[in-house]
């Protein structure tokens, strides 16, 4: 039988210990899919800084109504002071539409209108953006399938943008300094780091949230959106919005889903409204969008929570709204 001397023994033990330590370090560093803390934490959140006022005589919120979704996007952004107000040459832009499932085409109003997304991609590239990526994290079906079936992939590629399949490595543990219900989340690093984030929800009925609009659309930024759908959903979505604040929100209300949301599936639930709402303030945009359903922001807990915690304003009478008929 082999024997070893003391020195060999020590060497081997050191090697073994080192390997174990390295493994443990690697495991602890990569353990990055924690659930948000289930217990509500004490409300030590400070009010968030409000969005800055629009420059010059630009509108705070613009609503364009008409037939062509592309024109609606262009005209509403123009009213806000043009895309140059948001996108600077060389910027890295991410557009986040709602592509929640892979089994609905855009007629069913479960996913954002492809023309609206395409028009935004073209505007950003026109303003000199270096890279324009479009992405969402579908909960039903694969991302590829959802991108294709929604028609968004085709529109984005035609406009010169990229579709990115959200990949696991980019979901990183991120603390939420202003968190109330959750203080950390697993957020998509590239979206948190983007120079410009454009939130492009479709206005839809939602069985639990009443409506899903711009604020709730940002749930596609985390790897575990399911765990936000609890009693504390309004606060949790607001917590997330305090971390990931879109620079521009464009609500697609070309077709809106009046019932059986968010996935729909029945054309009788779809209403043609032919409108696009744009604002740098996601709360204001959501507040206006609620009126299309015969409701106000007060009926939508998420929007109410966002306004209460200073993310934006839901008081439509206090802001400059420009209505455009195309």
């Amino acid at each position, binding site marked *: 039988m082999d024997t070893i001397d003391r020195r060999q023994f020590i060497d081997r033990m050191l090697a073994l210990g080192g390997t174990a330590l390295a493994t443990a370090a690697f495991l602890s560093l*990569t353990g990055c899919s924690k659930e948000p803390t289930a217990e509500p934490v004490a409300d030590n959140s400070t009010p968030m800084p409000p969005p800055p006022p629009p420059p010059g005589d630009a509108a705070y919120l613009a609503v364009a109504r008409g037939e062509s979704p592309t024109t609606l996007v262009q005209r509403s952004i123009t009213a806000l002071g043009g895309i140059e107000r948001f996108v600077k040459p060389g910027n890295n832009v991410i557009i986040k539409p709602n592509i929640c499932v892979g089994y609905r085409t855009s007629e069913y109003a479960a996913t954002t209108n492809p023309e609206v997304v395409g028009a935004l991609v073209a505007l950003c590239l026109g303003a000199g953006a270096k890279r324009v990526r479009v992405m969402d994290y579908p909960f039903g079906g*694969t991302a590829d399938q959802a991108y294709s079936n929604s028609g968004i992939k085709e529109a984005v590629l035609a406009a010169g943008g990229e579709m990115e399949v959200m990949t696991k*490595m980019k979901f990183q543990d991120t603390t939420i300094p202003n968190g109330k219900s959750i203080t950390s989340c697993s957020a998509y690093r590239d979206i948190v780091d983007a120079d410009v984030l454009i939130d492009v929800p479709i206005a839809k009925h939602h069985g*639990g949230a009443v409506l899903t609009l711009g604020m709730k659309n940002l749930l596609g930024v985390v790897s575990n959106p399911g765990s936000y759908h*609890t*009693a504390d959903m309004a606060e949790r979505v607001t917590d997330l919005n305090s971390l990931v604040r879109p620079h521009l929100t464009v609500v697609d209300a070309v077709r809106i889903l009046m019932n059986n949301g968010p996935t729909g599936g029945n054309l009788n639930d779809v209403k043609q409204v032919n409108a696009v709402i744009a604002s740098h303030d996601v709360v204001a945009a959501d507040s206006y969008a609620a009126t299309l359903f015969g409701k106000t922001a007060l009926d939508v807990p998420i929007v109410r929570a966002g306004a209460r915690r200073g993310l934006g304003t839901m008081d439509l009478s206090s802001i400059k709204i420009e209505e455009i008929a195309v």
Partner: protein
Amino acid sequence: MAARKRSRRWRWIRLSVQILLLVLFLYLLIGNRVGASTFLPGDLFFLLDPLTGLSAMLAAKRFIVPMLLGLLTIGLTLVLGRAWCSWVCPLGTLLEWTSLRRRYRNAPGRLSHWRHVKYLTLAAVLLGALLGTLSLLILDPITILFRTLASGLIPGANWLVTHGETYLYRFEPFRGFLDGFDRFIRGTLLPAAEPYFIPSLMLIAVFIGILALNAIRPRFWCRYVCPLGGLLGLVSRVSLLRRTVDPEKCNACRRCARECPVNAIDSDKAYASDPAECTLCLKCVEDCPTRAIAVRTQTQPARPEQEGLTRRQVLGSFGIMLAGVALLRLAPLLRGSDQRRLRPPGSSEDDMMKKCLRCGVCINICPTRALHPSGTGADYDGVWTPMVVPRLGYCDYMCTRCGEACPTGAIPELSLPEKQQTVIGKAEIDENRCIPWAQNVNCIVCQEMCPLAEKAIELEDVTVPNSQGLETVVRRPVVVRERCTGCGLCENKCPVPGEAAIRVHPDHGEGQQRRRGHSQ
């Protein structure tokens, strides 16, 4: 000099063929999963494998036309002998490469009685098939390698890559490279959806066990256990081409007998080889210093070179086999005690027993990771057949790929509208765990997830006292049983930790009966 140069040729040709076919095996495994149009069928190796074909047809008691391709392999074996094992079989290739051949020298007669084992495994597989279970196909080499790669090794590799990437992505300088690398590798070499399967560890352990047998004898599995080797060995006895030794030239140096990778050469019988064992690797032909060995056409069937079994041994092993298979077939009686086993859309429990090869093609291809290899529940004869585990993955509303990929039709090929109406099971809410039911707190995740146009989960408003004793309205999910197809998206997304508060259970057909009742 010239002779030595020439003598290496077959070795390189064989190595190239082995590498080529192993790469083809991997290419088909990955290509099939990606959905890329591979120029050959994704299940090619299963079709070529005569054992899977024969067993499936015996069990189903009918011809399965694509599986007649296995006759090609039988035909080749009739000409070339058991060449499959050294030229084609991807598991054989891996086992050859992992054999420590230098450490072992063959000695005549040692372990030779073990060679009968592979005929016994073969007989057990076929007897089981005849009696209606393909459970023992888990011993088929093609299914072993496919299953281990798709549900064991690739998920392991994926974990390592993903976690390495996630760690490095924190650091700015790596991001550009990682972005490109990740885009390249996801959906190609590694699956787009993170793969994890319930018995991954078990599969890898079995595979390591098979590799470890190489330490006893090189290619232990191929020599002694493999049922496909047994089948091809039987056919090889009448093969056209066989190894011959020229007694004039042979100088009895023993080299061929000592170095034969499968110990097929008997130095006591003038260095003749057993055609049932010889895999036509041609090593001896090339190595023979006097070039006494050649492969020639023979017309006489070979007599078994090894000692046959006594009648008592044959009867005894047959008895053991029968008892084994009978034990296996007791399993259906135990099935009721198992909690639940959901099958892929359109396939019945009977299909799974009689038609499923346990190959894992469907599990490999499922884009939403709904399918997992069954472990050994109470009904152990279903081991490694596919089952839907909704908590880990759901059946995608827009997908029909498992039925398209199944080599034997154990999962029927359904059109999309057919699949969308096919009942896998029925979702049932556990009112003791469901948040709105048990805690009077709103949660609508399952209702939101239901992919049906007319949702199978509805919300009912109920006025209840809340924790402060005040009246509040809570929305409770209720399953509309007639509509539910059991896709499992609700169970998959249920936010209750651990076991979901809404679970899919096997339907047992009462839903369909009720639907029929409605239409009358």
